[in-house]
């Protein structure tokens, strides 16, 4: 009994340590290792390790948020509502960081931070959809009602995010790497050196997002219980 509890504790801290190690690796190897020289992007290709994992992380966190919204609607326990809300919060932070890192990259590669590219616009609108979620939560004073309507809107927002991020940008010409003949992800796939940093980076950032959410959930539960 005691041993299994110990094992659980080890597992609980283990993934946090793994996240730190992966991110330290990402930051050192990502900035120091060799990268292929592609035209236009050149050294700015290293944004792949910081910018792209933000979107992977955001989609993952929003997915967890929607998943917990479903769990809340199915059994009505306030715990799932806290989970859903905090996952959405971290997801929005990741999305904002994704936009900011993208803008820094675009400033050097495209010449201006906001280029009106379909992918930029889609991402910005998707974030607006989720910001409206917090306004909805804030404007309902009844806790139970706020939780239920929030969960419903959360699922609605998730459904609205899919066309905004995955479908619409692909229907228009874009200067973003990976579309319209620009060097992109498929080219990196051939390059094993980049893959060795990129996959750990994605995992590391996702775990880091989970960790932040975990902390926020625990703080929330403490403030509610006290």
């Amino acid at each position, binding site marked *: 009994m005691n041993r299994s509890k110990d094992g659980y504790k080890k597992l609980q801290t283990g993934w946090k340590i793994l996240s730190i190690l992966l991110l330290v690796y990402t930051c050192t190897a990502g900035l120091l290792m060799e990268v292929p020289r592609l035209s236009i992007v050149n050294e700015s290709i290293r944004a792949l390790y910081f910018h792209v994992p933000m979107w992977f992380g955001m989609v993952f966190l929003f997915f967890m948020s929607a998943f917990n919204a479903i769990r809340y*609607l199915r059994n009505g326990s306030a715990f799932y509502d806290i989970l859903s809300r905090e996952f959405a919060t971290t997801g929005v932070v990741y999305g904002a960081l994704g936009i900011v890192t993208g803008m820094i990259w675009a400033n050097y590669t495209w010449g201006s931070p906001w280029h009106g590219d379909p992918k930029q616009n*889609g991402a910005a*609108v*998707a974030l*607006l*959809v989720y910001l*409206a979620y917090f*306004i*909805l939560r804030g*404007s*309902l*004073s009844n806790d139970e*009602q706020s939780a*239920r*309507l929030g*969960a*419903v*809107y959360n*699922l*609605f*927002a998730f*459904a*609205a995010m*899919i*066309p*905004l991020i995955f*479908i*619409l940008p692909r*229907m228009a010409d874009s200067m973003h790497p990976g579309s319209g003949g620009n060097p992109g992800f498929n080219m990196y796939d051939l390059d094993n050196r980049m893959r060795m940093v990129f996959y750990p980076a994605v995992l590391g950032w996702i775990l880091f997002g989970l960790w932040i959410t975990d902390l926020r959930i625990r703080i929330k539960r403490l403030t509610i219980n006290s």
Partner: protein
Amino acid sequence: MYRVVLDLFLKEVKSEIRQQSVLAGLALYLFSAVYIAYSSLGLRGFNLDARIWSALFWIIILFSAFGIVGKGFIGERKGILLYYHSLVSPGSLLLAKMIYSFLLTLFLSIGGWLMFSVLLGNPVQDKGIFLLNIALSSACFGSTLTMLSAIASKAGNSNVLLAVMGFPVVISILLLSVRLTVNTIDGLGFYASSDEALTLLAIHLLTLAVSYLLFPYIWRS
């Protein structure tokens, strides 16, 4: 079930016809919006670019749709909702409201098109495809806005909340409609715009399915 949906739908139509002020207000709203566009852009036979025409058209339709269709649930009195609650299943009420707001938006867009033709000219070449475009977009607006108005009606400041939640969600529909309209103005034929039309249909089906599954949870309170 079909019977119930039909009855609820007919009730909506009847109550709308009885309160003529709403329909008249809608027509006047649309007319003034088109007239403002005309007097600021279209005077002296200034020829509008295809993109400006379609953007202007859809923005005006969008704002009118927000004002009228968004009221789907916000305008209802508490007593009536309670009465429905004891009488019909949530799914049929939602469907009836959605069909009603779809037809209202359709009516609105066709009226808007007529006013645009009179005041700002009618550059649309593929009229059939444009009608299809109007129908698809109205269906999308109708389903999305009805669902959002159901959510917003539970909160205090519902009209502001509806706008805040609605605009970002509707933007993807609006962008597709504008693109489709530009294609019809250029007379590119159906194959050039089948992508957009299918995506609109897919978005409509997606919101319809999500709303149908989720509406009972809003309805319970």
